[in-house]
């Protein structure tokens, strides 16, 4: 049942929806393409985190001035042919695929540059000319599973949902019919080198030149968090937005842990993180930059020193915070004058004992409670740490069909009082066909904790539906929180093409708030598991009982007796007689 209300809902949906076209009206195209209107930009952002870890985020943006409608284009230059043909053949308008290993700790690390849930996430907007969206979705997930060597072919109707409010198109869109959107998460999916290699193959320079030389698997997977993503969307070609270009963004975020990779010192360098240094920019790239976040904390002097000297310093407001970046432009000739390789080193000027963790404005946790194998309760805690502003958040929960939710037990409590959501969309599950879908728009008061709880009952599966390791448990996909968070500092209407990285993937309509999408932890739930050795036990027992019983009865009934003459006896009898003679006992 969907209960709509005016006010915050309309405002939020309008902002999330209408900001799409507004996004594209950016400044003129960045740099010169390598002929025929294709351009590649590569960026790397290094951000030191509290507690000595460092986050590195790569972004490779290929922009192609062509129209990928069905069958229109077949000649590719920078854009990879595999993805271009797939988008054209299946009528895809937008495609977002993320493969993540690990969990981004929002409370201690702040907002992620681009969040992604643990496992594999795929969400796609199709063109409205597609006749059968489900068939196209199935073919698309199978082909992507082949391209990226990931088990995306397990995406089927039992883990696909059609959200109505949480996922709006991030590229150009005219009209948003939710029947064209599909969203699926595979929380059990593991990411490894096999998935990194085809991802690197899609880059025009491969991993031979530019920033991609740093992407070596043995260092990248030795980390606390690894996320690689592919985003394809249509954007405006220029400010007048008369023609459409296609943008392929490949992002990779990795967090290096100071304990596992450092020797106790908290100094970082490119060589220490990736065991490689940069030697040149990709010859096909129109822009190739490394950004290092040297923002001072608490408005004091900088504590972070970077060597060699950066080519420039850039200030921007990113995700509501004023940040200062030291920029290394790999295309400027002065960078490689002194040495042939660039090894950016970050050194702390003072020890970081007094590290004030700035908690992010919005963060959330989710957990399962209850006892036994019959019932349980899912609880989500959403924290709003803004001192005086309240804002709404859309919560999307996808629960598999074998955890039967009781919607009448859904309670939302803020500061001890009940909080009624202004919009609820609930789609109940169908056994073995569809999962539960629950979407709510919840207003979070300032400086509060909201607890959303719902009770469920565990179902008994058929014995062929269990995985080979059923006692590991069954995963529940992470829930998604989408919100326009008010920023503490007013943001200028920055030229989105010029700002580094991730501020330009999400819409930002005005300077007072920024869009955040957070994912909670996946849950692991034990289902009642039968004893799988029973069929073997039954066969053994039945056959033994039948054999013994039947055999004995048959023998009793059909045995014939006849007289036997006493024989001289075998060897044992003779030996026994000998011993008896010695003892003086009569023989047998």
């Amino acid at each position: 049942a969907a209960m709509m209300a005016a006010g915050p809902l309309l405002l939020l949906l309008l902002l999330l929806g209408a900001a799409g076209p507004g996004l594209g009206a950016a400044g003129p195209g960045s740099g010169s393409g390598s002929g025929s209107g294709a351009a590649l930009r590569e960026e790397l952002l290094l951000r030191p985190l509290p507690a000595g870890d460092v986050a590195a985020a790569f972004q490779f943006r290929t922009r192609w001035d062509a129209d990928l409608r069905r069958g229109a284009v077949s000649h590719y230059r920078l854009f990879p042919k595999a993805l271009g043909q797939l988008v054209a053949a299946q009528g895809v308008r937008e495609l977002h695929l993320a493969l993540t290993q690990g969990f981004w700790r929002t409370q201690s690390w702040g907002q992620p540059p681009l969040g992604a849930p643990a496992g594999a996430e795929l969400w796609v907007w199709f063109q409205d000319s597609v006749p059968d969206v489900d068939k196209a979705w199935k073919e698309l997930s199978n082909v992507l599973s082949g391209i990226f060597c990931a088990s995306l072919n397990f995406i089927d109707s039992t883990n696909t949902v059609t959200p109505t409010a949480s996922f709006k198109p991030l590229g150009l869109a005219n009209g948003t019919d939710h029947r064209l959107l599909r969203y699926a998460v595979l929380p059990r999916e593991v990411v490894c080198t096999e998935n990194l290699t085809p991802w690197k193959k899609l880059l025009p320079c491969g991993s031979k030149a530019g920033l991609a030389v740093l992407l070596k698997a043995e260092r990248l997977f030795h980390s606390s968090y690894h996320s690689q993503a592919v985003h394809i969307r249509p954007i405006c070609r220029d400010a007048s937005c008369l023609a459409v270009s296609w943008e392929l963004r490949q992002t990779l975020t990795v967090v290096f842990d100071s304990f596992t990779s450092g020797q106790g010192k908290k100094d970082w360098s490119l060589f220490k993180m990736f065991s490689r240094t940069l030697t040149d920019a990709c010859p096909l790239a129109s822009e190739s930059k490394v950004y290092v976040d040297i923002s001072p904390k608490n408005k004091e002097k900088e504590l972070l020193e970077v060597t060699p000297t950066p080519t420039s310093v850039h200030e921007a407001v990113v995700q509501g915070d004023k940040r200062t970046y030291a920029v290394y432009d790999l295309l400027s000739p002065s960078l490689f004058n002194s040495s042939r390789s660039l090894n950016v080193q970050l050194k702390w000027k003072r020890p970081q004992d007094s590290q004030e963790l700035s908690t992010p404005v919005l963060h959330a946790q989710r957990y399962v409670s209850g006892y036994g194998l019959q019932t349980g309760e899912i609880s989500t805690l959403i924290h709003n740490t803004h001192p005086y502003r309240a804002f709404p958040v859309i919560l999307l929960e996808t629960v598999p069909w074998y955890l039967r939710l009781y919607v009448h037990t859904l309670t939302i409590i803020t500061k001890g009082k009940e909080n009624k959501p202004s919009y609820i969309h609930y789609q109940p599950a169908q056994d073995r066909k569809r999962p539960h879908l629950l979407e709510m728009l919840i207003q979070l008061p300032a400086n509060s904790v909201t607890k959303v709880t719902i009770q469920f009952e565990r179902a008994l599966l058929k014995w062929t539906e269990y995985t080979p390791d059923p006692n590991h448990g069954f995963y529940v996909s992470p829930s998604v929180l989408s919100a326009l968070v008010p920023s503490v500092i007013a943001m200028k209407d920055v030229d989105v093409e010029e700002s580094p990285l991730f501020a330009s993937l999400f819409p930002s309509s005005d300077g007072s708030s920024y869009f955040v999408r957070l994912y909670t932890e996946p849950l692991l739930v034990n289902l009642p598991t039968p004893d799988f050795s029973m069929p073997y036990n039954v066969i053994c027992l039945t056959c033994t009982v039948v054999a013994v019983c039947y055999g004995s009865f048959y023998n009793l009934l059909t045995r014939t007796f006849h007289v036997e003459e006493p024989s001289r006896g075998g060897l044992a009898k003779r030996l026994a007689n000998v011993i008896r003679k010695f003892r003086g006992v009569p023989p047998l």
Partner: protein
Amino acid sequence: LPQGTDVYVGKHRSALLRAGRGLAALRARLQQLTQVIALPATSIAAALADRVPDGQLGPDARRHLKSSLGYEITFSLLNPDPKSHDVDWDIEGAVGRYVQPVLDKLSVVANFSVDSQILYYAVLGVTPRFDKESSSFLLSAHSLPHVINPVEARLGSSAASLYPVLNFLLYVPERSHSPLYIQDKDGAPVPTNAFHSPRWGGIMIYNVEAPASPQASLPLHVDVDMVRVMEVFLAQLRLLFGISREELPPEFQVESPGNEGLADWELDRLLWAHTVENIATVATTLTSLAQLLDQISNIVIKDDVASEVYHAVASVQDAMAELAEGRLRSAFQASKEAVTSSERAFFDPSLLHLLYFPDDQKFAIYIPLFLPMAVPILLSLAKILREARQRKKEPSKID
């Protein structure tokens, strides 16, 4: 007819013969002509090559592409050194001008789709060696089989269709390995600097002249001469399909087919070979299906599978009848339908033989139950037989 030419073969199934030396000479010339134009027995044997066991045919037997409903042609430009060479090719124009007319003519045979891509940092699998006399780099003939392997991983296959792919690669060697020539078996450089691999595609090496002044700014802009490149690729396409011309007898001259790429009678030969191959494929498929049915006695054949099989058999008979009458186009259509039906019938998911219990598995399940019960019965049966035999031997003991 010009001097020295006795036979002139046109491009539309007609030929001009110079007569005048008597009937016997004329007959000999006519025989030679039919050898050139019509489908010889070797072509038929080559079409059936996949079904004949090894050893009976020469090494040239498996050269031509297998008959299929469609083909995908991919042109790839390999640039291993984008820092030195900024290569650009007008592939859209070249495909429209040179390749599309040939594909239009071949559209009777199959559906074609063309695409292209540019791959950077794609290196050949073999390091060429430097030859001091010609001051150039050489790839010897025996290292050619190893050239393609590492590149093939990057070429990719189409996400949209299941047709076989023909790859045509244009390789621009690195500045440090320029100029690069391919050597044939005798050691002389190949004039077109290209080679093809049967049933896969072809590769051509495009050398870029070194810049006039050593201080020229890198990267050098290179505009590929598409005429030269397309000549080679179209010739390789003809070789791959088997439309090439064998040795012509002396005094024969064949008219050049112009922009269309192949003459009508060459197309007829191709259609004929493909028809024969299709018929053979259908025969093999249906025979395998029958063998599968023999193996598993309780397999269930659905109605639509059965109707596909009937349709395939009817189409094959049609195709053979049309071939016997000489109507090539309809025979080819019938054989294509036959192949489609038989493939659909054979690859139906319900025919998977693992779905049905083989007999030995049934034995394995029932033996632990019946064997212990059967042992006392068998023993007592043996005892009865023994007693009966004893009684027969001593009839006088019965009271």
